[in-house]
């Protein structure tokens, strides 16, 4: 596997030099590919390759052009991201894909907007598939930025709708990463729970450094002492798996309400102890309908040797909407394609989605699901061969996730 990916990188770098003759659209994958979040960066890259390969196989892009993916390692760090964005520009990037870490996304969206103002002859679009800080479609919104996942407020609204009907829960503990995204999750949870469940007690609200805590047991001891019945967390990557691992080791018996537990390694770490207890709110999971199950199987067929399963519905959606926008506008020029993307409606595997023209946030149905054993439920597929999978508890229609925005494009 490693050899194969090394070979790919080698071939890709060759194509840079020989790619000038036949036309190619360059997709720069600017993501953390080393450090504590490297694993999910690689997972996202595999999702991207799967979709881009499909686009090239269909061959419907105008002028017979093809898409090409070049990965750039931003080390999940805003400064590094700005540096590698320069090298992405040198490689002729037209579309930047990024998602892991909102602090990186905010840095990138500013840099891309600035680049577009200075170089109108070579504009770049930012396809954000997972950075959920609401600021990106509010105070920091840019014309060149499009988000294909629901932001923190939309997801928290969906999640709190569900918590509101769970009358058996009367105390929750918030634990999040100490940066813009984690702060947004914590603030949204507080304000929304206050309205929807006024009698619910928030017994703790912790912020921990992102990617630096290796031992979560002190936090778990604190959660235990607080007597919380449920944990609400926006953590992702190793910060989520280590948190759950610690909770499991210390036998903490609480409900988990998460945004990202279906991400690689999450379900394997939790194992059977999380059955009926672990919940997530996502824009996609394998067991929404037959179409999503088919797509989950496609991923396994394409990558039989990898550990994880399909997770990023947002990457699939972003690439397909990009393809549609290019075909409709008859060009691959990012500025023209960007105009086609605004207001676009798209029939996704999980339902109809539409891009908001006023802040470039996709409106999409959201799903609250819980971890169950798939044994005896023939209509469910599992995750990471654990025999466990997610089952939808509630679907929140796209239009209901619409939030007011302060965004003003100039």
């Amino acid at each position: 596997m490693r050899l194969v990916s090394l070979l790919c990188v080698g071939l890709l770098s060759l194509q840079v030099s020989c790619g000038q003759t036949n036309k190619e659209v360059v997709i720069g994958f600017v993501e953390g590919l080393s450090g504590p979040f490297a694993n999910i960066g690689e997972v996202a890259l595999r999702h991207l390759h799967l979709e881009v390969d499909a686009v090239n196989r269909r061959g419907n892009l105008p002028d017979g052009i093809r898409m090409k993916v070049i990965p750039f390692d931003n080390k999940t760090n805003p400064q590094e991201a700005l540096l590698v964005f320069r090298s992405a520009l040198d490689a002729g990037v037209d579309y930047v894909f990024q998602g892991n870490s909102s602090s990186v996304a905010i840095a990138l969206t500013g840099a891309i907007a600035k680049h577009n103002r200075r170089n109108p002859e070579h504009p770049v679009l930012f396809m954000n598939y997972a950075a959920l800080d609401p600021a990106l479609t509010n105070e920091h919104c840019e014309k060149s930025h499009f988000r294909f996942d629901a932001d923190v407020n939309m997801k928290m609204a969906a999640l709190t709708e569900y918590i509101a009907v769970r009358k058996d829960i009367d105390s929750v503990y918030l634990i999040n990463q100490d940066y813009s995204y984690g702060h947004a999750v914590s603030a949204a949870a507080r304000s929304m729970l206050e309205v929807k469940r006024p009698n619910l007690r928030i017994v703790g609200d912790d912020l921990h450094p992102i990617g630096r805590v290796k031992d979560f047991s002190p936090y778990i001891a604190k959660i235990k002492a607080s007597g919380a019945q449920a944990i609400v967390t926006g953590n992702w990557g190793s910060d989520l798996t280590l948190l759950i691992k610690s909770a499991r080791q210390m036998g903490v018996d609480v409900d988990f309400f998460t945004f990202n537990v279906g991400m690689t390694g999450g379900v394997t770490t939790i194992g059977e102890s999380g059955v009926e207890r672990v919940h997530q709110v996502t824009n996609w999971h394998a067991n929404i309908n037959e179409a999503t199950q088919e797509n989950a199987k496609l991923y396994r067929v394409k990558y039989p040797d990898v550990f994880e399963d399909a997770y990023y519905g947002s990457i699939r959606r972003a690439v397909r909407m990009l393809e549609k926008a290019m075909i409709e506008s008859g060009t691959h020029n990012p500025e023209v394609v960007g105009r086609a993307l605004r207001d676009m409606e798209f029939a996704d595997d999980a339902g109809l989605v539409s891009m908001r023209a006023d802040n470039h946030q996709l409106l999409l149905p959201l799903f609250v699901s819980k971890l169950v054993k798939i044994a005896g439920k023939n209509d469910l597929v599992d995750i990471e061969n654990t025999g466990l999978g997610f089952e939808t508890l509630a679907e929140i229609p796209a239009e209901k996730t619409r939030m007011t925005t302060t965004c003003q494009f100039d």
Partner: protein
Amino acid sequence: MEFFLITLLNSLSYGLLLFMLSSGLTLIFSMMGVLNFAHASFYMLGAYFAYQTGMVFGFWPALFLAPILVGVIGAITERYGLRKVHKFGHVAELLFTFGLAYVIEEVVHLIWGRAPVDYRIPESLNFTLFTLFNTQYPAYRAFMMLVSVGMLVSLYLVLTKTRIGLIVQASLTHPEMVQALGHNVPRVFMLVFAGGCALAGLAGVLGGNLFITEPGMAFSVGSIVFVVVVVGGMGSLVGAFIASLLIGSIQTFSVGFDLSFIDLMAGLGVIIDSNSSWYAGLSITISQTAPVLPYLLMVLMLIVRPRGLMGTRET
């Protein structure tokens, strides 16, 4: 009470892991005067070797094999690297270990990739040892404490009660004399360096599966290990032990306190308005500052008592 006891146990196990990590570093420093910047990299190698050999032989043989392998690499490093640069002085040695840390990290990238590997706690230790009130205490943490304490005792016995320990100690203060008595002092140094690395490797075997085994793990513990050694006193094994426990408990206990400066002022009757420009800075709680506290302790220690808790040198 429950919270206190559990947190105490957690801080003990974390502190003892820190001690395993830093004992090798302080040992090497006291014997050879070399500050090994690559020490945490040997910790990482221990975890990866345990993962790799564990896949073939299982966890228990790996527990012994991995530290030995790390020790062998340490010996080679000393024999063909450090010994060569030794004649150019301490700066050259420092730079050598500094570079070595990067080399090891890149090699790990090449062999095992950039993503974490799936190195797990063995099934035979993956159970609840006891239940305190109603929090379960995992057996693996207890096992880790046991190994660490066992290591401390045997290290002490080897250094003070055995012949090889006496030679090591003598080589530290009177290398020429020991050489004149017919002992091979360079080989003693090589052994000490290999031993110190093996101890870091052992910490890696135990810490790698409790936390996470990934190429960034060396970097993330690298700085805290130096804090332990500085606070405990350069070259003092007892000092490193006390400092490890101290830093372990500071980091673990501080997570439990949600007090902020604002609460403190409120207790004194001063209410700070949330619109005040100072609010954001002052509302940071002790638990949020937990990761910084050890470094604060190090700075304070360097100001008040530069040689550390048990150190003998004024450095």
